[in-house]
């Protein structure tokens, strides 16, 4: 439990809080990238190099950009007049607090039985590759199919229906 962990945890939580609380939608998206970055660094802190870089590449390089693009395309960066929170915000907050309470209780309650620090595993990219092609070939294929269909789906969803418009 190092000093680095506290800093990264604070960064992540602050980023995600800002992402949820800020008024300006673009600021939310930018705060979200801070949260993603914090998470990626936490992954690195957990010796998951590959996952960490993948996190940066995918989340900061793609998802965050997608989010800001969506915000711009939907002209969502202007703050709406009648507040940014939903009518049922109190209910939502209560539910979230309850969930956190339960999770926190569960984690702290089982803290005793959780394993302690072990030696850092040496994981090379090669190992990951071998594992992907070997043991995890089926999930890999499924994810590949999923990604392809998601891509096609996203394209179809976002595509202009030109014939209809004209």
């Amino acid at each position, binding site marked *: 439990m190092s000093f680095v962990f506290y800093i990264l945890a604070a960064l992540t939580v602050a980023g995600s809080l800002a992402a949820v609380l800020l008024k300006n939608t673009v600021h939310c998206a930018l705060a979200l990238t801070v949260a993603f970055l914090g998470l990626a660094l936490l992954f690195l802190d957990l010796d998951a190099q590959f996952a960490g870089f993948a996190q940066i590449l995918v989340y900061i390089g793609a998802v965050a950009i997608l989010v800001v693009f969506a915000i711009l*395309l939907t*002209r969502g960066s202007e703050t709406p007049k009648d507040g940014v929170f939903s009518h049922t915000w109190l209910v939502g907050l209560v539910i979230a607090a309850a969930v956190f309470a339960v999770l926190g209780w569960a984690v702290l309650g089982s803290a005793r039985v959780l394993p302690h620090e072990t030696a850092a595993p040496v994981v090379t990219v090669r190992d990951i590759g071998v594992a992907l092609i070997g043991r995890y070939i089926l999930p890999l294929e499924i994810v590949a199919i999923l990604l392809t269909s998601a891509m096609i789906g996203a394209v179809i969803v976002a595509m*202009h229906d030109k014939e209809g*418009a004209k």
Partner: protein
Amino acid sequence: MSLSGLEKEKDRPEGWNRPRLIEPDGEGELLEIAMGPHHPSTHGGFRMDVALDGERVIRLKPVFGYLHRNHEKIAEGIGYLGSMPYTDRLDYICSLTNNWAYALAVEKLTGQEVPERAEYLRVILGELTRVQNHASSIGFLIQEMGASGTPLMYAFREREKILDLFEGLTGSRMMCNYMRFGGCRVDAPEAWLTAARKVVAGLPGFVDEVDRLLTGNEILMARTQGVGVLPPELAVNAGVTGPMLRASGVNYDIRKVDHYGIYDRFNFRVPLGDHWDVYDRYMIRMLEMRESISILEQALKDIPAGPVMDAKAKIRGFRPKPGEAYGRIEAPKGELGFYLISDGGPNPYRYRVRPPSLINLTVLEDMCLGSDVADVVLIFGSVDIVLGEVDR
């Protein structure tokens, strides 16, 4: 004038050749940007109010007048000769053809004759002007396409040589003020003609160089082919003239139609475009440069000796008979006409310039609608205007 004035568009009378309306596809608002007057590619003070849907142009309204100085009013207050240097400042890239058009109009009004040698000199200078205008216009066009100025610099390198010739003969590089009613101001010495022959001999090499650099370039083709199409019917109806008209496939070259000066002595062809787009305008200018070079070669070979000024011509203080005249020439940018009314006084009663640049801009919106913002500057560049002439 903001774009709100465009709402009137629906009330426009039927039957006229109006720009086809492009409807935004309904999502989101239009992005309205004012391109100019401080925009890198509007050649001085010019503004286009553009409404964009995404990057597609929905409306485009040119706004003129930033350089307006009422040249015509000034000319009504001074004598016929006094307007000659002002014509230099119309289309300041080609002052000599402006001189020529004005001299031609006054000669029509007064019925003066021009000596043969002066006619030859006029043709030589006019065609040199055409070459340097087309070269720099191509340079600017490609510059607008983002080519970091290389073609422009090559064009200017060649233009420099031509301007040196102008300076050597007329005393000024751009504001030549050379032609007079009934001839030319000074005679060209033999040394100048030799220098001109040398420059003209180098011009085909330059055109070849630009050809190799650009004509086959895939990026240029992709950017310009099919962009800014101007159908011939519209071009004729909208009074478009010059290389732009010929790029729209209309065979109309005033040098061939009016036979003004001595153009019927020279052997040259009129290139025509079949696709009516920006690439055609580029290519027509390229091909016209080659034709101009051929005219230059012929003229420099045949130029006779003799006076350059009509002996009867008066420089100042002449009073033409009451009447009017419209004289026009094929300037590099299109039909440049001067319309003069004389009331018998020493000043013109009415002096009107028919500016090809302004009238060619009539169809700017038609060509731009539905294309990209990036194409707007390209189409605008392919019209080849000079603001000095548009706003006068």
